[in-house]
């Protein structure tokens, strides 16, 4: 890119810019919901963006691969003539102020859904999205992106990356699409002076040092899972601690299990796809009644094989965890990722 890759924007102008973005596309940003929880959500005015949030309760996949999503509709005209029509979502979306781990989660989904054959529903939404991330300067209790190589600062993957620096925001450009957004906002951005770029680098170092205590020991767990060196008794004990809520799959930015369901009423109907969880007992149930993973132990094992084996890590460029920490908060039992990797590493509960 010939233009400078970093800009600066003042806080008041940032709000002005967000207002413009809202005029142009659906803007999804951290927003405080009734009760005080922060969720990525559609914002209608700039002041709804919760810039000071730590984490959101939902991953971005809710918008790119929704929990309940229509795939196609049909109509029966008379006796014959079945008309099928796929349902694509071509809404332009700008994801604003998303955390690095969540953006890394989207990049992971990109790899999953762009594998042959491409998932056109996801890819269509993705082509209509812009990702503007916000770096993290405060470690949050539950997250461990450093161990997952998914933050707190990103090198690539974003269209724009924002970093809050005392008075202003530093804006790094990651793609043409990002540059485009800057170009369209005449006068709001100024090229970033070198000191500011340096300040961002210093901040990154300092933050990484502070994040270092937040750990999940992936390397050892990866080795043991890959070579099937986790004793069955340990899987069994973890299975005792899974209450089959499915929450870990649903909050995880990288999980993609789904099932499909049809609805029909008088000559027309639609097919939806719905999130599923590989920990549910009937996930692999066959019509005959045979269930290859009837034991919860085998389901827990399959889940963590999917997340933590070299086989998948190789194909998807990284293991299936970006360190967002959501499963820690949401596991009804006690099988969140850091606990599981620690158990596997120690070989005991």
């Amino acid at each position, binding site marked *: 890119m010939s233009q400078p890759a970093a800009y600066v924007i003042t806080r008041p102008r940032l709000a002005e810019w967000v207002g413009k973005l809202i005029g142009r596309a659906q803007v999804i940003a951290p927003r405080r919901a009734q009760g005080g929880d922060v969720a990525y959500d559609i914002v209608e005015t700039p002041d709804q963006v919760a810039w000071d949030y730590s984490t959101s309760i939902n991953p971005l996949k809710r918008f790119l691969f929704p929990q309940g999503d229509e795939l196609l509709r049909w109509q029966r005209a008379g006796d014959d003539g079945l008309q099928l029509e796929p349902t694509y979502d071509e809404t332009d979306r700008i994801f604003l102020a998303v955390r690095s781990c969540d953006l890394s989660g989207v990049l992971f989904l990109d790899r999953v859904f762009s594998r042959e054959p491409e998932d056109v529903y996801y890819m269509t939404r993705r082509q209509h999205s812009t990702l503007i991330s916000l770096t993290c300067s405060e470690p949050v209790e539950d997250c461990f992106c450093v161990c997952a190589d998914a933050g707190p600062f990103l090198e690539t993957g974003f269209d724009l990356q924002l970093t809050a620096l005392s008075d202003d925001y530093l804006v790094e450009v990651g793609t043409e699409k990002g540059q485009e957004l800057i170009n369209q906002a005449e006068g709001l951005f100024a090229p970033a002076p070198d000191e500011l770029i340096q300040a961002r680098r210093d901040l990154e170092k300092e933050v990484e040092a502070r994040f270092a205590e937040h750990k999940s020991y992936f390397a050892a767990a990866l080795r043991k899972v890959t070579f099937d060196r986790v004793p069955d008794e340990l899987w069994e004990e973890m299975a005792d601690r899974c209450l089959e809520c499915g929450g870990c799959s649903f909050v995880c930015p990288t999980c993609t299990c789904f099932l499909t369901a049809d609805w029909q009423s008088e000559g027309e109907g639609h097919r939806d796809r719905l999130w599923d969880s590989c920990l549910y007992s009937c996930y692999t149930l066959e019509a005959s009644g045979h269930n290859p993973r009837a034991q919860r132990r085998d389901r827990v094992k399959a889940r963590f094989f999917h997340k933590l084996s070299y086989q998948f890590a190789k194909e998807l460029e990284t293991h299936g965890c970006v360190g967002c920490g959501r499963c820690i908060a*949401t596991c009804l039992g006690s099988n969140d990722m850091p606990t599981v990797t620690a158990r596997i590493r120690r070989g005991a509960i």
Partner: protein
Amino acid sequence: MPHVLTTCPYCGCGCGLYLQVEGRRLLGTTASAGHPVGQGRLCAKGWHAHELATSGTRLRTPLVRRGSSLQQASWEEALSLVGERLTAIKAESGGAAIGVLASARATNEENYLLAKLARSALGTNNVDFSARLDALPGLFDLPKYRHLSLCTAGLDDIAAADLVFLWQTDPVEEHPAAAARVLRAAEAGVPVVEVTARRGQLGELAQISLAPRPGSELQLAAGLLHVALSKTEPAEGDSLAATVANCTPDQTEAATDVPASDVIRAGEALAAADKPLVIYTRGASLGPQGADTLMALSAFGKASEADDSWCSLLWLSSYCNFQGARDMGVLPYFLAGYQPVSEETTRAKFAEAWGAALPSEAGLPSWEMLGRVRALFVMGDDPVSSLPDVAATRQALGNTDFLVVQDIFLTPTAEMAHVVLPGASFAEKDGTFTNTERRVQRVRRAADPPGEARADWEIICDLSGRLGRPMDYASPAQVMAEIAELVPIYSEISYQRLDEDWGVRWSLDGAVSAERAGFGGEGEEEGPASVSQPAAPTVDEEYPFVLVADHSLGAWAADKLVVNAVGLRRQQGADRGEQLPELWMSRADCQKGELREGTRVRVRARTGEMDAAVHVSDAVHAGAVVLSAVMREAAASVLPPGADSETGVPVLRPVAVSVEKV
């Protein structure tokens, strides 16, 4: 706001969740991190809650019976028919000929309005809900049991407890939000004592697992009390110690098959505990000797080191608004707020507010109402699925001159109706639910009802007008304002107040948010009057097994709100269509009888027989065979519905059976 905070519509825990909305479309469900019940977690049901609203099987238009089939009709046709028929029946036979069943899953406002309609417009106190059998019903009228029919402790007491009993309940199946807390307590080293014929998942973490012969739970409770009390000096005139004086560990072993050493271990743990907590559900109350067993459990606190501020009983309801339905006067003998219909001053207060004279005679409970009333109006209740005697219930409904069912799905009860009115799901209306620990919480409208369906409170208002008692409310908030006026325990509650926090817990003495003030039942800590012989059936060579109906097991599979949510339906294996009832049997017994997983067997009792498919289980104790209570229709001939001798409440008793390969 695109994320709408609301309350889970399934069990009585009342976890907080957000419905994700785009436009008016429901996209999904997210757990609320800050919510005090869910604490960022939901069980599978909660995570799929939006699916029940978006289900393609929802009722979308009113239906009216023409000949043998239910056919689509307009609201005008359906409601005027209901208005005319109810008016006519009232005129012919009086209000007492009409019964009204409201709902453990409708909002407080709707339950309040329907009870109001029943009493003011129809002139009947036959107001109840069949799901009330979830607790030990009928007891609330007996002052000595009062503390047993309300949840006195709270969910967070599980974290505070230093000894947890799981008494005939499997929270993993029934109350996952409670299970999550028990699991954490167990992991932190708190001893868990499981009392059950079928070990639940938490049993794996339990320190003591007691398997009394089904039907001898009262004797086990008495045995534990005996051990615990023998550690302390009996107080002057202590009737409890005298009651359990003969329940020595050896006696207890003889009565229950629980080894005396286990009775001593568990009893000593109880004696030493500062904060013992007994978690129980309908599994305990709907068993034989349920009332006495609960009385014994209520004395556990006294037998321990707990002081007066600690409440040792945690009763959990299976329905999101079980508590609220009762609070709102969906009871044959109480107006809202447990104000007796028999009291003249109470009636006068309500009569003035409602502008109508109210009937003074107590009404009939659901299980007696059916078959005795000529017309029945049912909102969000499903007696066919809730009452123990399915055949009798169907027969009674079939004999009803006029049956109206207002629901969101075509339930087995609705299938029999003359008129079906499509209501709104929890996601499509405003209101409140009161959870099992008396926490009143908001339910918020996030989407529109499907087709022509309408919010239930609107339907009731419309109908009341047609019955000559116009109801004029702009919103459920206004209904709540009226409730707060008339119902002391809700006097502090308003939507504004609820919006400011995660809900408000009420207590009997009006001290809102006081955790446990005001529940002293007269019989509290007294224990049962006596410990009778076990109600366990005698096994012999001909009938060597004891068959138990397990209320925790597979309870989901019978739940309309579950099987109509796609993900949960798949999870029930319900896609596979009708299957034989599963009979859980211990591995040892299966080996002896050469039975394998899925083997078709005939279960014979003295009263009849049924076929089932064997499920080989490590969770069931030898000698016991377990059937999900939801299978009771198929099992009716071997598990004949009976009634509790003291309360008249229908219960399912364990029976001796034989099991043979077909």
